[in-house]
């Protein structure tokens, strides 16, 4: 597949049946444009071959592409069952048959008991399950999920992620999963497509992308610090970074003075964004106890250091 949305996106990728491709990248990078172009909702040039047919020449309704919207877009006037039955019925399946199929899909997504509810009576997680059921019930060859976990509570997102992973493993077509969450990309996906500024920055397996991010932007997305030294990229985890308020003594060769720019919760730890004096922004994870003890609030002058043994060096991909 190679497609161009003039002024917004230029992307190419190849995927086989059963592949789950995570699409990651910053906001405005073109992730949603890619998905909408494949679904036929945005005009695109190029070709996107699916079973030998160029999707881009087929109207949206005939593409057999399932799209799960970020905000679900469940039809508010229809019950969950009627939402899921909408696809089959639109393709001419008799009502009773479509309803039965819809209930079966809702059951697979674990929300069969909500079949009679309207979307506004569903929680975010429930609505997203119904939306996924609706997309799958239309029997797509290509499944597009546009940030399905966005806007959900962390707990809900975690359980939905596990379920989604199981359903995608059963799905025989190709899946594109747009996410801004590295966890989605690394746990669910078989491939990761990194989009940045309307271009593909990297395409590889989760292992390749997470261990050898091609750009420091990718690195930040997968939660790594990456520094360029000549033709080498040097990556290290924020958990490997030591934070001190005074210049550290000891064996760490890599040390940077700087100031805390931001502090945010990150799982059970706090993630510091530190603007170093010589330029690059680095991230460091510290325990809440350490943060309190050292008084790590924005503006605080700190020293970051990392042991050489924690740094992975690899050749930078040609840009």
């Amino acid at each position, binding site marked *: 597949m190679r497609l161009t949305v003039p002024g917004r996106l230029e992307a190419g990728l190849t995927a086989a049946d059963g592949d789950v491709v995570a699409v990651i990248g910053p906001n405005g990078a073109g992730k949603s444009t890619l998905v909408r172009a494949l*679904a*036929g*909702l945005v005009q695109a040039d190029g070709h996107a071959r699916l079973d030998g047919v160029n999707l881009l020449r087929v*109207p*949206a*309704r*005939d*593409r*057999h*592409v*399932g*799209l799960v*919207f970020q905000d679900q*877009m469940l*039809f*508010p*006037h229809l019950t969950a069952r009627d939402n899921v039955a*909408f*696809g089959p019925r*639109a*393709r001419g399946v008799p009502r009773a048959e479509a309803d039965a199929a819809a209930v079966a899909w809702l059951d697979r997504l674990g929300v069969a008991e909500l079949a009679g509810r309207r979307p506004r009576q569903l929680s975010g997680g429930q609505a997203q399950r119904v939306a996924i059921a*609706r*997309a799958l019930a*239309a029997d797509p060859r290509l499944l597009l999920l546009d940030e399905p976990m966005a806007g959900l509570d962390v707990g809900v997102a975690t359980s939905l992620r596990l379920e989604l992973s199981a359903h995608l493993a059963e799905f025989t077509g190709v899946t594109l999963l747009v996410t801004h969450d590295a966890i989605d990309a690394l746990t669910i996906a078989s491939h990761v497509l990194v989009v940045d500024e309307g271009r593909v920055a990297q395409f590889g397996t989760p292992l390749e992308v997470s261990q050898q991010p091609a750009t420091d932007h990718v690195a930040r997305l997968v939660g790594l610090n990456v520094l360029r030294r000549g033709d080498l990229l040097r990556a290290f985890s924020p958990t490997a970074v030591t934070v001190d308020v005074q210049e550290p003594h000891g064996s760490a060769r890599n040390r940077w003075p700087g100031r805390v720019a931001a502090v945010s919760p990150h799982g059970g730890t706090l993630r510091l964004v530190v603007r170093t004096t010589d330029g690059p922004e680095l991230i460091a994870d510290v325990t809440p106890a350490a943060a309190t003890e050292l008084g790590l609030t924005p503006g605080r002058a700190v020293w970051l250091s990392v042991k050489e043994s924690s740094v992975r060096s690899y050749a930078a991909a040609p840009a």
Partner: protein
Amino acid sequence: MRTAPDPLGRPPALLLVPAALATALLVVPLAAMVAAVDWPGLPAQLRSEPLRDALWLSLTTSTAAMLVCLLLGLPLAWLLARVDFAGRGALRALVTVPLVLPPVVAGVALRTAFGRTGVLGAPLEELTGFSFPFTVWGVVLAHVFVSLPFVVIAVEGALRSANPEYDAAAATLGASRWTGFRRVTVPLALPGILAGMVLGWARSLGEFGATITFNGNYPGRTQTMPTLIYVTRQADQDAALALSLVMLVVSVAILVMLRDRWLVTP
């Protein structure tokens, strides 16, 4: 319920006085009319045959016009709201012309088109022997002509405010444009569509200029309530007041219905 003092200060008299005048201007004539009604004689007035004929004609023709407006106006509104084509702005402007046109002029225009010698009226009569003017159908036609713009504009607004992403979702699920229209677009815009229909109905009910110009004033056939009131007014002031009261009650009832059912709820 007491309102808290406005932290921005009291409304200035320069604005309050004209606002009060505006309110008086709108309310006083209606109140004066209600006060002038000959209440003891009202029941007899209301039983008069011309009134019942005219009221019935007004209600039926307005309802018929509303249905025609829906049948023709909804597709046009959808086209304006959902399809991008060259000349869309021009078409919308064209549709709104009857909105600002004096109804008498509308009647003259209808005559020119659908009169016995009109560009459409002449061939129509030649082919079928039927012609619009001076018939119930002429009344409906005049009503449709003046009400359709209201319906189209209101329904287009309703369709525009319904999120087009739902149409997109329907398309990705394999729905044709027609299926999407039928099963998604219309149900979602239904409150606005109904409000537009009631608006058109009310406009038809009050229609006078185009109707009388196009159809004349034949009791039982083309004499609608507004025409009857106009004619009665010249002979019998009390009867005209009674008729006007009926129209006022019907109009206020529509307004209340609109407010409660559709205008307030988003």
